[in-house]
């Protein structure tokens, strides 16, 4: 099950990397949430999985309503990003399978792939909706790696939903110190 979840996590992170508009970003976040919940479930954290999925789906629904209109998937000029989704995933796969060891290969692949891809997306993006979606995905991964039981899952779910609810601020000249 975790191997499938790892593939789904890559798929969700890749969609976030390749999307520029709210529908694509919402779809990517929902897929990452599904994968994170599946990994939590496979680790025996059924309650945490449900909470994480709920937070991810709520975040995804909020993202669906906030941000540039449309899907914005693979728009012109996105070839480097497409290559990044493949190369980043291969590097993460190598580190997870050849360098590290442990009980769950799927967990390792999913965590590293999502962190590498969304970290790269954060460095490249300029649109607030994209950056907030990427950091919401990172929060979901933090929920499954921090190992504090239901507390970390609940906090990750809250952070994901809260971050997705943030409106993009306008840049203006402030007054005072």
């Amino acid at each position, binding site marked *: 099950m975790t191997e499938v979840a790892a593939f789904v996590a890559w798929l969700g992170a890749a969609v976030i990397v390749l999307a520029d508009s709210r529908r694509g970003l919402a779809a990517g976040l929902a897929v990452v949430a599904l994968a994170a919940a599946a990994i939590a479930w496979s680790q025996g954290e059924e309650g945490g999985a449900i909470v994480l999925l709920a937070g991810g789906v709520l975040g995804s629904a909020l993202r669906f309503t906030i941000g540039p209109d449309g899907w914005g998937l693979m728009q012109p000029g996105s070839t480097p990003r497409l290559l990044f989704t493949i190369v980043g995933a291969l590097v993460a796969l190598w580190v997870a399978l050849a360098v*590290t060891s*442990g009980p769950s290969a799927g967990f390792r692949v999913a965590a590293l792939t999502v962190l590498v891809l969304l970290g790269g997306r954060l*460095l490249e993006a300029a649109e607030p909706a994209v*950056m907030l979606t990427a950091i919401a995905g*990172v929060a979901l991964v933090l929920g499954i790696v921090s190992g504090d039981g239901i507390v970390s899952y609940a906090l990750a779910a809250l952070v994901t939903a809260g971050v997705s609810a943030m409106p993009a*601020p306008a840049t203006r000249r*402030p*007054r005072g110190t």
Partner: protein
Amino acid sequence: MEPELAVALPAAGAACATALRPRPKLAFASGAALGVAGLVAVILSRADLTSDQLGITLTLPPASRAILIAASAALAILVALPPPRAERSTLLRWGLGGLAGMTAMAAAPTLGILVMILLLLVVLQASGAGRRGYAIRFRAPALAVCLLALAIALAAMQGPPLLTRLVVVCLVAGLAAALGVLPYIHEFDPDESTAASPIPWLAFVGPVLAVVVVGRAGEMVAGAEDAFGALLIGLGLINIVVATIASWRTSSDAEAWRYSFIADWGLALCGFGLVVPDGVGAALLVLYSILLGRLPLYLWSRQSLREKAQTDRPINFIVAAALAGSAPFAGFPARILLLRAATAMYWPLALVLALSFLLWLPGSLRLGRTIGAPTGRQLIGVAVALAISVVFGLFPRPLLGLAGL
């Protein structure tokens, strides 16, 4: 007193100050009352007392608690003696929000929860109005969150010793990116409001974050403690040399102030890297002096920075001496402790550090002049900051005792 109250009261104060923004006096009164109650809760919360009233075990370690008290005191001084053109309620709103997040980070049971709270702070700070673009304000602290998350993920896996060293690199790089020190200096706009600028990361949230991350790193870097210390010392030395020279040579006075914060962080990183109690004590004294000395002085200098007013009065030279870490100010015992720790660990490092201390002089003389000729509230503020620095310089032991050293 329970750590939950220490988090909840400043958070409630920030929420009140935000909700009552149309009525500034009421916003200020409610925020100040809850903020003072939060400070009392931090002071009264016994160090290392665990509480799990919310189903999560919260503890305020002594070092984090000491830095939180210093941060609260810095906020209280700034709100009581606000810089020209700054609104008290705005300062209080941002300060209490940061303080609530910092207390939550300090009390968090694991690094994973700490990073999630950091993530929230990053998003909230970037949501404020600033002159820099959203992406520029958000990117570096968000990268810090990713790097720290990567460190946590790698630490949860098993593997060869190389993996632990990778955890060390991610931790130190994440910390540097969060603080905005080399090699991840945040873009800086001198005309931006302080709350939206990189200064809170360097001088308000950063000290607590660094103390907590370094304190919690021990279990994650088991077997690679030497590499962790060496990386911190190396990064610290690079920051000292580059930032002191930049603070002296850069064309903008506001940039010079920003570099001076980074130079102080170089000292703190070296202190944390030296691991021995003297080194950690030196790092904490540097962080105290950033919070209660350099940060207020920077804010009070902003008006004269805007007016490009520079003077050579005695007060300017006294401020320069305090910023340079000369006796009897707080930077002096920090430097002495750092030298003692370096001598105990590896004496050539003490030689390098002693030479690097001289680099503070030209930059500090320049920064001292930018204070201008303070009058009224600003003069009282500068006098209070200098007095605190002298007290810390003459009696550092109680401060170190507060931090459990």
